[in-house]
């Protein structure tokens, strides 16, 4: 199972990097979203994918081996919220940039030396 998910995360990374290298800004943002999906899948996979119960204790602690590792899930949750914040900021930023600079082509957003 870990191998399949690792390959999936790898495909997500490859697609993300292909999109990041495009000229259109929106494609680049789609690339960053795919990239964070890949990273989150990696965290989950690296914690180990075993067929166990969700980490919720109902009546006290019995047989701790029965549950999946809760730490990667907490890490992913933190990371999801952070990348959500950044993505929304990036979308607004892009909207403003396209409005001000009148282009969404990264090649035309290069700039000069003395501004």
């Amino acid at each position, binding site marked *: 199972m870990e191998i399949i998910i690792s390959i999936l995360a790898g495909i997500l990374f490859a697609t993300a990097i292909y999109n990041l290298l495009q000229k259109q800004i929106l494609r680049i943002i789609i690339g960053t979203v795919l990239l964070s999906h890949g990273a989150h899948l990696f965290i989950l996979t*690296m914690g180990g994918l075993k067929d166990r119960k969700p980490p919720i204790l109902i009546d006290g602690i019995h047989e701790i081996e029965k549950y999946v590792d809760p730490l990667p899930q907490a890490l992913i949750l933190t990371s999801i919220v952070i990348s959500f914040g950044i993505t929304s900021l990036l979308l607004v930023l892009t909207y403003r940039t396209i409005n001000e600079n009148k282009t969404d082509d990264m090649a035309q957003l290069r*700039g000069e030396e003395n501004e």
Partner: protein
Amino acid sequence: MSNLAVLPIIIPLISGIILAFFHKKVTVSRWLTRILTIGNLGLVSYITWIVFNEGSIILETGGWEAPYGIILVADPLAITLVLTTNIVATACAFYASHSMNIKEETHYFYAFFFFLITGVSGAFLTGDLFNLFVFFEVLLMASYALIVLGGGKVQLRESIKYVLINLFSSVLFVTAVAFLYSVVGTVNMAHIAERVQEVDQKGILTTIAVLLFFVFATKAALFPLYYWMPKSYIVPNPVVSALFGALLTKVGIYSILRVFSLIFVYKLDLTHHAFIWFAGLSMIFGIIGALSTSNIKLIVAYNIIPAIGFIIMGIGVFNQDAMSGAVYYLVHDMIIKCALFLLVGTIAYVAGTSDLRKFSGLIHYYPVLGWLLFVSAFILAGVPPFSGFIGKLLLLKGALTNDEIVIVVLGLLSSLLILYSIMKIFIQGFWGEKDESFVKKPTKGFVGPVVFLLAFSVILGIGAEFIYPSIDTISTYLLDPEVYIDSVLKE
């Protein structure tokens, strides 16, 4: 008592929240910011004094024991850097009201300023790798807001690139933490260090070390990952540039220093020797960039790269002298880069342009500004008796002990060219014929913070005899990871 470790994080955080409520009242915000930064500086000085006299302060947040909870470690290195951060922040708090316009100030500048300090202090103090990532994001989020504050065409354009590169390296950071977690099963730095030591840093751990190095090198603007930095550091307001130049890249270099002196220290010839090459190439490319341009802000921004090179060279050489030199140079560089950005911002303001070819003869109108730039060029290049000299002397001494002749020659040569690149501003911008048509703008309030920072640089240089023992303590501590591990895990 151990709660002192969290105060440098909590106080700016609360200050930021308070100032978010007063964002429309500019006068109140200004004075509140000044009072709060000075108060915080005083408190951090007190904590530093305690750390150096009574040993590191370890705070187990929430009362959870070491590997299970999040640990804040105020050890000598971290607290020294937090103190330097607060010195820089105080200077910027006093400079901000003069260089910003009312519109920028009312749009939450002071709140974001404090959130930036929160993130930087947190990144220095944390003892947990994932928590380090979170504090990185705290400071980056504040920096995204600060870089775009004002919303000019150029700012918007450059901030997109800045956000993208930092987002990419943050995702890589998370991935590296995930890999490390799968190998060692913990995210607490002391615990990771202990487990890496047990397995003697197998091949996979060295791979993760290199991945982490690339993440931090992107944040620290090291060769070949510096291309995003110079342009994005010059577009915001001078005070924001000064905060970025002094703090952000230095958090990346601190992370390299921490990770490669505590965790990955068992394959020195694979990792640390490569650092020396990166250091040399950073010096060469940084200085080429600084010499190639006539934009005064860009000259200073490019000068960050060789400085990062010097510090990484100290980490690469990895002996007592070189580590002392790296720490000394780190502290010195935070202060002098802030001073230089503020100075260059003032010069660009009075000259009305940042293009060096378009103004000259400023010394007739602004003698104080001219001589301050002259002195800071000397400090930056490492002319005795100023602070850059001691750091470079220790670094070169350490490198010579390990027979790294090439990097020593490169270091000396790049110091010369650093001096030339800043002196170019002085010679072309300040010397020359008096321009009669020049309209003098008042510089009241611009000079004070710069003098404050340069005074610290001069004290660091002249008072090296008093400061060196503390730096020596830090480097002894850094070279012996056992002390850190034992103090955190309480064995």
